């Protein structure tokens, strides 16, 4: 017996060893789950039992240089029903009717929500994105019905509707795929709105605040057990722009009232590239993207929005404005004698082709040629100096490069010239010389590039990167971001040349095509341009820079009016208003 039992003891011992081994495996697994992955499971347990009714935090505001808020936040309200004791159908029906009147929503829909809440004991959303107009009605509702929870959210509000719309951009709901791919990681919820373009997009991470919310404890069926805590929001950081509110307003109004109502304005400080106003028409009403539910229950209108920002995307021939560059090139290389005269007979024949002037100027010297924008004078000049030199100066002013302003979709200007033509294995014809020197032909330039170029003329050749953000300041006063001035290049115009150009361009304003911006007490240098447009009315350019007597130029204005007929009549008045506004208090 005992011997046999001993043999069997071994078998039982084997089972005991199995028990120990299994326990060890369990020990390791438990250690892994409870100690190593504790944090992860604790988070899961917390998210299991909490349901958060979020309060959307205000986005950071956008200020202009003169401290006007052009993008702020308005209140919006959500109505939640938090069920507790079971209510009868009749009561719910009455409640639904009551609420539906106050939030302009279908009664049946509300009744369905209430019934769902009553049956499942879950919190339901009755109305979202409600306007503050009827705030008293909501407060009344809350007093009358204790189960109504009344959540204040914020939403974007633009006090000046259309102002700087292309620059500010707009906000919208996150694309579902983008949300899953990237935003979910940085605490965005699927129904959060984010910047979709412009400043709203570029500075999204600064503008976004931290949402607050009401934390509810729920059980596995989603039934509300109690309200745990309420966390307040933290607003996003404010963006301070270099834009001047007044100038921006004048620029936009001016464009709107111009002949066609289409075009772009860029106002810039030539000494550092700071943009004082940038406008593009047509613009759009930013508030349309964030309308209230009870004002616009059908949803958000985003049809018919002109997102095309002419100031950085519109490419047009610079026309006579280009004569400034040709003149600088000629002066720098001593090609012209300023007093030599050319006879303008209204056109110039090259072979069997006639190159016209916009009118017959008669005997014209350098001053007159710029003053009255005589094409024939420049045709003659171009033949004398050759296109290579003009092309060289084009490159000196980085004309073929973009300005690198931080705006989406900026287009690089399109330049042409003999060298570029040879590189493409094309031919350069004598006629191209003439087209080039009056800014026609293949040369296309954006208004922002034009502003950079004119700034360079005004400041002696320095090409600044245009910028529009001064700094971004968080709610506790910390500067999170500050833009630095950036010099992109220097065309190094000789002081003598600059002097001559200043004089010539002042002449244009005082006694020539730039009469529109003639101002007392301010030295205004300007040039007009009328770009031929085979598809319709000609486009008008007006460029100017100005300074108080014996001071450095401090403002550059570039106005482009699409189908503006001519530079002086189409674009001139807009420029004048801007300059008037700028110097108004100083002369």
């Amino acid at each position, binding site marked *: *017996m005992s011997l046999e039992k001993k043999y069997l*003891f071994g078998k039982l011992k084997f089972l005991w060893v199995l028990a120990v081994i299994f326990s060890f495996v369990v020990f390791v697994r438990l250690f892994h*789950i409870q*100690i190593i992955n504790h944090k992860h499971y604790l988070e899961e347990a917390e998210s299991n039992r909490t349901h958060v009714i979020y309060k959307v935090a205000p986005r950071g505001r956008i200020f202009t240089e003169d401290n006007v808020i052009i993008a702020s936040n308005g209140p919006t309200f959500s109505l939640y029903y938090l069920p507790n004791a079971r209510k009868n159908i009749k009561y719910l029906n009455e409640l639904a009717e009551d609420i539906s009147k106050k939030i302009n929503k279908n009664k049946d829909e509300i009744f369905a929500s209430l019934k769902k809440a009553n049956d499942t004991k879950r919190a339901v959303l009755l109305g979202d994105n409600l306007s503050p107009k009827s705030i008293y009605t909501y407060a009344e509702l809350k007093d009358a019905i204790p189960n109504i929870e009344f959540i204040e959210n914020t939403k974007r509000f633009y006090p000046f509707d259309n102002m700087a719309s292309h620059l500010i951009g707009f906000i919208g709901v996150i694309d579902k795929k983008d949300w899953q791919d990237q935003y979910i990681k940085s605490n965005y919820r699927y129904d959060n709105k984010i910047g979709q373009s412009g400043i709203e997009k570029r500075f999204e991470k600064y503008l976004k605040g931290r949402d607050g919310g009401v934390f509810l404890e729920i059980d596995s*069926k989603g039934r509300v057990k109690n309200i745990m805590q309420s966390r307040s929001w933290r607003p996003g950081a404010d963006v301070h722009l270099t834009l001047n509110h007044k100038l921006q307003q004048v620029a936009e109004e001016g464009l709107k009232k111009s002949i066609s109502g289409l075009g772009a304005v860029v106002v810039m400080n030539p000494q550092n590239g700071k943009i004082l106003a940038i406008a593009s028409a047509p613009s759009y009403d930013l508030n349309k993207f964030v309308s209230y539910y009870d004002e616009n229950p059908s949803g958000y209108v985003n049809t018919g929005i002109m997102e095309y920002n002419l100031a950085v995307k519109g490419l047009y021939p610079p026309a006579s404005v280009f004569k400034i560059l040709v003149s600088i090139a000629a002066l720098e290389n001593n090609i012209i004698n300023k007093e030599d005269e050319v006879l303008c007979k209204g056109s110039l024949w090259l072979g069997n082709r006639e190159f016209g002037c916009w009118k017959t100027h008669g005997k014209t010297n350098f001053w007159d040629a710029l003053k009255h924008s005589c094409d024939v004078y420049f045709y003659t000049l171009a033949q004398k100096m050759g296109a290579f030199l003009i092309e060289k100066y084009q490159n000196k002013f980085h004309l073929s490069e973009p300005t690198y302003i931080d705006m989406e979709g900026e287009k690089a200007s399109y330049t042409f010239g003999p060298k570029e033509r040879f590189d493409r294995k094309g031919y350069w014809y004598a006629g191209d010389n003439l087209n080039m020197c009056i800014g026609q032909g293949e040369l296309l330039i954006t208004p922002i590039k034009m502003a950079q170029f004119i700034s360079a003329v005004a400041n002696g050749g320095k090409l600044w990167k245009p910028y529009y953000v001064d700094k971004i300041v968080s709610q506790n006063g910390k500067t999170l971001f500050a833009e630095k001035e950036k010099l992109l290049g220097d065309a190094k115009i000789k002081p003598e040349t600059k002097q001559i150009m200043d004089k010539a361009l002042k002449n244009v304003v005082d006694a020539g095509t730039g009469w529109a911006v003639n101002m007392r007490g301010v030295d205004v240098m300007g040039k007009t341009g009328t770009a031929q447009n085979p598809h319709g009315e000609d486009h008008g350019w007006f460029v100017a820079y100005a300074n108080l007597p014996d001071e450095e130029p401090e403002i550059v204005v570039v106005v482009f009016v699409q189908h503006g007929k001519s530079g002086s009549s189409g674009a001139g008045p807009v420029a004048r208003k801007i300059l008037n506004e700028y110097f108004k208090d100083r002369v």
Partner: protein
Amino acid sequence: MKPLNLGIKRTTLDITLLAVFVSLVLIGTMAIMSAVSGTSFAEQILRTHFVAIILAVVVFILSWSLNYQVFSDQWKVLYGIMILTLIAVLIIGVSDRGSRSWFRLPFFSIQPSELCRVGLIMVMASFLHFNYRRIADPQVIIKVCALILPMFALVMMQPDFSWVVITFPTIFAMLYASGVNMFYLIIICGYAGISGLFPIMWTLFDLKPDLLDYRVFSFLDGLSNFGWNTFIFCGAAIVLGYLVWYSLRQLRIMAPTFYVLLAVTVLLAGFFSGVFIDKQIKNYQRKRVEAFLEPTSDPKGAGYNVIQSKIAIGSGGFVGKGLFSGTQARLGFVPERHTDFILAVVGEEMGFMGMLAVLLLYLIMLYRVYSVALVSSDMFGFLVCCGVFSMFLVYLVVNFGMIVGLLPVAGIPLPLISYGGSNLVSSVWALGLVESIYARRITVV
């Protein structure tokens, strides 16, 4: 001459074993109280639990003081009573959650199958004890099968699959410990394995239909329809058996014909009972298998229990959230929290320390049962201890394996910890028997 005094006292009660299982019941009671607090049925459950504890004390004292060998003598009577009870429960029992397995008494209900498990351990121990000299013969195995088959059949008619899940391995381990020929055990294992494999395979095909693009799998999938596939399969099994037998002959390997015949029979029998199980299995049970095969396939459905109980114990951390403060269990994320998933409550509220305590106490308990087996005065006592040891081991493996995600959800409570009066009483009865064996052990002096 003075008697030799070696300082050895003859104790009649294994204090360690008693202390361990009393501690387990205490931990369990705390966990149950926490799990049910705040629910509408809390009062009723706690009342039943305390009644069960009182009953358990009585049963413990009785079985400890009674000579366990009585059961060996009267095993046929015991067996008869068990069969009659199981038949009775099918007739006059009441159903709860689809199983007709309860006797309703004025104050509480009794689940006789739980008590029958301990009874079966004793019947088996007794039978094996009497047949010990012939233990290696196949007749003994056949008789054992004949003994347990009626009970299994009766319980399956309730139906109570989880009883089978615990009892079958227990009996198997007892047979192994009593020294039955390994070949027969392998045959039984193979039969059980094959009959379990087919339903699992078909479930897997349901889960991943693209597997059916392979000819082999689509052939296997069609087996359950009793069409041509089945016919070909059975024919192939017989022909293959014959070929193996014939080849062995030609190679002059004199394997008994009986073995080859047995192998083919087991394959076919396993297949047919697999078909039977597949037809019998309930939808929720299939879901559990699916959830184990692929937990993420249905996180809100069957996989939910596994995921939520894992979150529960994981969120408990080292010391737990404290009694009555576990959110996972109290807010209803962990299902069946006072019975099958009681360990989730322990893990969440008492943390790693609590889980370790339960695990260690269980190990100590197993060790004590093992020690008692070694000192038992007869073969019957040894085999009863083996049975009790195996039963608790299987419970331990199934429960802890499930909670840490090593095994599929079986819906089985953890004895001494979970709520369940019949289970508690029968567990304590088994431990009382072990104490009785201890009290009547071989003395050292």
